[in-house]
């Protein structure tokens, strides 16, 4: 059995989604690892921006929070958050935003606010932070989440960050551009049907079956006619992830699938 973890596979798949020259709004964990991997592999011209205001970061260690001092030292620019949101995000300079959450639904809407009722929460989650504006204003959005009936219900309890809302042209009708283009889970990769805007399974990870995925999602999932297997990370990618990006295995704990 191949020597890589599911998270490493997700990181490598997410990295492949980034083009050289992309300006990327980075979050902590898998997104941060993916962006740093792409930066070292095929996208040296990629520009990392953190919502904390650090631009063009070259972190000398794995950042623990989006405001880690290692993001500032040696960066190309540090700007007020007012500029991050007005001049970078709203102005349209951000090519790719990474988002996660507690729930992602059939149309790519994300919930990171509350499980249950907003006023009487079962579980109160952190809330939007910058997620809502990234979902609304970045050109492309890549989502990472666990594949389960709990985390991928047909409809999220609360739309924190708008995807395609009810599907079809609902998002465009509200004047929103962009939108999610890819969802990467621990079992497979989804894109969005250009017409219905519904999630479509386009690749499954090695060892996973379509049945397994159907058991772990909240609706009858659409499957692409040209369904493929997600390419596993190459040895160089694994080396970079383990030796350079997360040597202490802070985010990518287990080394066995």
């Amino acid at each position, binding site marked *: 059995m191949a020597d890589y973890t599911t998270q490493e596979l997700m990181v490598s798949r997410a990295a492949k989604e980034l083009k050289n020259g992309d300006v990327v709004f980075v979050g*902590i964990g898998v997104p941060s690892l993916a962006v740093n991997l792409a930066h070292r592999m095929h996208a040296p011209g990629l520009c990392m921006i953190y*919502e*904390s*205001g*650090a631009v063009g970061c070259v972190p000398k260690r794995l950042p*623990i*929070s*989006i*405001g*880690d*001092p290692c993001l*500032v*030292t*040696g960066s190309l620019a*540090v*700007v*007020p*958050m*007012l500029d991050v*949101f007005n001049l970078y*995000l*709203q102005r349209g300079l951000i090519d790719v935003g990474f988002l996660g959450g507690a729930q992602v639904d059939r149309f790519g809407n994300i919930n990171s*606010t509350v499980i249950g009722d*907003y*006023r009487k*929460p079962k*579980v*109160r*989650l*952190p*809330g*939007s*932070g*910058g*997620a*809502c*504006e990234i979902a*609304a*204003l970045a050109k492309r959005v890549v989502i990472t989440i666990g594949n389960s009936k709990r985390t991928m219900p047909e409809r999220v309890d*609360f*739309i*924190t*960050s*708008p995807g395609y*809302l009810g599907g079809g042209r*609902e*998002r465009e009708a*509200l*004047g*929103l551009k962009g939108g999610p283009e890819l969802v990467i889970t621990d079992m497979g990769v989804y894109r969005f049907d250009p017409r219905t805007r519904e999630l479509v399974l386009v690749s499954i990870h090695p060892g996973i079956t379509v049945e397994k995925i159907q058991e772990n999602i909240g609706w009858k999932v659409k499957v692409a006619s040209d369904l493929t297997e997600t390419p596993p990370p190459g040895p160089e990618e694994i080396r970079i992830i383990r030796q350079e990006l997360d040597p202490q295995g802070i985010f990518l704990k287990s080394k066995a699938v």
Partner: protein
Amino acid sequence: MSKVMTMKDAIARFVRDGDLVVLEGFTHLIPFAAGHEIIRQRKRDLTIARLTPDLVYDQLIAAGCARKLIFSWAGNPGVGPLHGFRRAVEQGKPRPLEIEEYTHFGMVLRFMAGASNLPFLPTRNYPGTDLLRYNPDIRKVKSPYSDEELYCVPALNPDVTIVHAQRADADGNTQVWGLYGVQKEASFASRKVIVTVEEIVESSVIRSDPNRTLLPAPVVSAVVHAPFGAHPSFVQGAYDRDNDFYVKWDTVSRDEAGVQAYLDEWVHGVPDRAAYTKKMEARRRELEADRQMCAPVNYGF
């Protein structure tokens, strides 16, 4: 005119029960020492506003100082949930906590509107989010130049804003480098501003690099010398973020007893930040920053 005073005096004089209080600093320069003094003086019924409540507000909430929270992301960065915040919201312990929720962009614009003496500022954000159903203050404004409608947020004008900085002179001219967060906007929006600093310097130091000044004396009410005053958050060029403490807080804060024990030892158990720092001298040394100086620039003519 010197505005230098002790933390005790600054909090006693400028923070009153029931005030709208802001302690800002986005992961960087969080004024923990000031937060602890607010707890020590048992201030009550505060409305506290901050983008990320972080541990400093989790402690204020758990200590029963706050009746309302205005925020945009309530988590323990890189670790998990804020248990004090969740207990208050989910179980009303130690007292019910009213919440008013925005997004980061929304909070930044609220401070900027307040700082600019404007009733509101517009944004292209917000279409499609359910936040609109629960926050009636995110409203629509029509552009006088087209049929476009945009959402907007109302100004936020705190009674007092507290920020921590690398250095200030005695008059309150304050300089910051590294992450700026929203301290400038929150301070200009505020009726009173308390600045706590690692170092009080001669004005000549400030004047040697005027582009670094974040706050000018006219907006500052008090200057407090509070070295290590941002721990467990960090100060660029002074000390690193105490990530272990953020992880430990996840355990400490899981029940009210744990929080109380922490407050008894580290807040009520010490008279001030100097004593707190002495009590963790070894840790402080571990966190001390390496030197990585910037290339100086010429201001001559």
